[in-house]
């Protein structure tokens, strides 16, 4: 009982480290080669996990080999664009100026339903408004909508809009995330003053406190005290 447990834990940490080492992206953003490597690693690791007759090295060496090969190939493909094209392929244009390239769709084996679904996910419901749609090498569709059909921005209208900056969470579920406001002058005083002003006495009573560079505050008190 203990042996499979320990072997599985060793392989688990080894796989997690390997994936971190590869700097993997999320499954949906992976290039074909990266997806293959990820699937292979999980398949390779499962064999010595289940079969304790096999030395653990028989699982670890293939993983080291796959991860190293992946890192070396991705480094080489950064340097050599031709190799990158060979491994990852290149983006294929499916729609240009509202016209569908049927040949491209056939070569990608995409149905019109798939294409319409991808467009809807990009908030595009009328393909005539699409200036350019490309199937990227990671299998995602990128869409450029014709500027005539885009809502005007503040810059288009020549008006100035207030600057915005991302909110930083300071208190999350009663716990102080100290690093996020380390740059704030007199931070402890400011924090106490802010939560008191919002009706809380201590950090424990706060569910969420976030602030942005303009010192706007988002505050939520814990419902159960």
């Amino acid at each position, binding site marked *: 009982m203990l042996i499979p447990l320990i072997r599985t834990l060793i392989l688990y940490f080894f796989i997690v480290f390997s994936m971190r*080492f590869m*700097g993997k992206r999320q499954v949906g953003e992976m290039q074909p080669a990266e997806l293959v490597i990820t699937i292979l690693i999980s398949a390779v690791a499962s064999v010595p996990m289940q079969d*304790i*007759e*096999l*030395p*653990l*090295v*028989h699982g670890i*060496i293939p993983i*080291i*080999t796959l*991860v*190293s*090969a992946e*890192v*070396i190939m991705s*480094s080489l493909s*950064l340097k050599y664009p031709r190799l990158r094209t060979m491994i990852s392929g290149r983006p294929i244009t499916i729609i240009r100026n509202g016209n569908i390239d049927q040949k491209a769709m056939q070569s990608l084996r995409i149905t019109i339903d798939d294409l319409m679904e991808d467009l809807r996910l990009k908030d595009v419901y009328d393909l005539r408004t699409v200036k350019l749609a490309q199937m990227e090498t990671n299998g995602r569709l990128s869409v450029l909508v014709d500027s005539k059909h885009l809502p005007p921005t503040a810059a288009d209208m020549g008006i100035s809009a207030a600057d915005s900056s991302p909110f930083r969470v300071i208190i999350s579920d009663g716990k102080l995330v100290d690093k996020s406001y380390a740059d704030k002058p007199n931070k402890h005083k400011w924090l106490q003053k802010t939560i008191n002003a919002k009706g809380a006495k201590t950090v424990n009573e706060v569910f969420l406190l976030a602030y942005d560079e303009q010192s706007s505050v988002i505050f939520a008190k814990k419902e159960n005290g």
Partner: protein
Amino acid sequence: MKIRLVISVLSLILAVSLGILSAEYTDNLCSGLSRQVRAAADKRDAVMLQQAQEQWQKRVPLLSTFIPHGHIDRLTETLVRASEFLKNDELSEFDAEIGCAIHQFGVIGKYDCLSVRALF
């Protein structure tokens, strides 16, 4: 990225080096023990066979880290059986077990060596 690349290349070099070393070590160990077992069998020398068996047992933990345990266990059992047959003067069975052990030494000795059979 450069550090990762260096670590990857070093890992591959280390894996290849360990592979070559382990293959060399196993081959030498198995051919040495195989000769010893053959000599013990020719002389019907139970002590010599016992020594070979003990040497084998000492190497089992290290060998188990890179050779499937089934291969190792089979050879261990064969050596034990051969030893028992020799003690009981059952020489034809003893010779058969020795033949089997020498074959298994050959299989384990060549386990990590590059060969068409192993590669494909």
